[in-house]
């Protein structure tokens, strides 16, 4: 009987803690790591000046790198160990600056940035690009709680927001602009955030 009661209490506690998200996340995360985040965004912008590449980590320990290299006609997807020398060779083969790329991944690892890529979005049917960055929530409350990611989007132009800081569609200033089916909130005029269950 005591054992059953113990299991019931344990499961209830796990369930309740699983429903909670980390207290500090995203909260002030951006402002605490602002310099590192901006440096990563700049490095990534430099890396993708001529050719697009998406980079991220597929494991929780930030060892396995996922790289999606885009050419005009084909997207090459590779998974490597960050320490594997063949990763640099592959990057060079596809015309990327391997040193910048590997340094960027190391910087991403430092702030638990799981994924970075460029996404297209459309205003008045015109294509524009934003930078999409996701950071893994280190403050998980229990092993039962689902993963949450702090998503940041960087725009080249200032964006429109409502009085609650919700990112708006330029065409219709009453409608929230969604990215990956999520509503985003203001950090500053060119940077927005949301919390998502998916890192991309």
């Amino acid at each position, binding site marked *: 009987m005591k054992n059953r009661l113990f299991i019931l209490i344990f499961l209830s506690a796990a369930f309740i803690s699983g429903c909670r998200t980390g207290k500090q996340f995203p909260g002030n995360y951006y402002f605490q790591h602002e310099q590192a985040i901006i440096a990563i965004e700049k490095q990534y912008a430099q890396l993708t000046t001529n050719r697009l590449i998406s980079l991220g980590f*597929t*494991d*929780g320990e930030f060892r396995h790198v*996922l790289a999606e290299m*885009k050419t005009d*006609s*084909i*997207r*090459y*997807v*590779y*998974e490597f160990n960050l320490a594997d020398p063949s990763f640099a060779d592959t990057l060079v083969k596809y015309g990327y600056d391997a040193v910048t790329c590997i340094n960027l991944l190391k910087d991403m690892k430092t702030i638990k940035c*799981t994924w970075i890529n460029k*996404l*297209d*979005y*459309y205003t008045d*049917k015109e*294509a524009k690009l934003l930078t999409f960055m996701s950071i*893994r929530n280190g403050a998980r409350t229990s*092993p039962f709680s*689902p*993963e949450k*990611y702090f998503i940041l989007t960087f725009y080249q132009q200032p964006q429109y927001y409502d009085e609650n800081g919700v990112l708006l*569609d330029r065409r219709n200033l009453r409608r929230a*602009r*969604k*990215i*990956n*089916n999520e509503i985003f909130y203001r950090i500053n005029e060119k940077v927005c955030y949301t919390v998502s*269950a*998916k*890192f*991309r």
Partner: protein
Amino acid sequence: MGIYSRLLFCCLYWLVVFAAAAQTHSNTYADKKQQALSLVKQITLTKSNSWPNVNPDLFLANLKRNIERPVFLYAGRNTNFCSYAAVGYILLEQDPSGYVQFMLDLYTNGEALYANTTYKPAEAVRKTAGTILYEGELDRNDADQVFFFTLADHYKGYLNILHLKYKRDGELGLWAATNLAKFNRMLRAMMQTEIRCIGYDLVRVKQKHLVDSLQKKLAQGDVFLYLNNGILRKKNHNKVKKHIPTHYVVLKSIVEENGHITMTYWDAGFTTQRQIDTKALYSMLFGISWSVRHR
């Protein structure tokens, strides 16, 4: 004539025959494409009463781009349109002029006939096409919106049973979902060829020598894979994963070397080449559908 000379002659003969056949095939495809393009160039469209939110200029530009580069047919970022995109991609590759005529009839009359099947999308669907937002390039691909909405409205499977009528944002939910049997039905109707299939909606494909088997199927015709997208395109680090297929891709080639598989597939907007291990392929593969070209 010695045995070696005869052998050499034989080889040369077959080489010439194969080269001629390949040339004829590529010529036929180029001709079909050209025919479709001239059809689009001749047409001037005005606003359609059937599709009030579809922009005629965007519609025509989208048709032209699809014919020139079928590989860019894009299903949107969050929609459940991947199965319809796979069908559209094959249609564009095999019958571009039929596709164009079907789309123009659909736009002009609000209904169209293709391969003895009449497609007549409901009013709710016709009003929604052209209004999709925040789905990447699909936002401005009005012809693709018309095509996907029409197929999603026409074909129904058990996944759609509680969502038969379109409601707002239905493209993101079960209204547009496609189970394997429905997918095969669509392929049979649109491709007008024999479609064979192995697999189930909830049970993974368990086949020995999978890569060899897929290569043989590729030699026969087009191959479609029904996959667990959570493994193909990982989006979170959760330990507990859903073991269900949610995605369709068109397989272009597959080779195995030292236990590593290199797959090239068309995946709603891109051709992707990726390396994957055998275990991952088995764990994400739920269905294989393939066409058999009768020669």
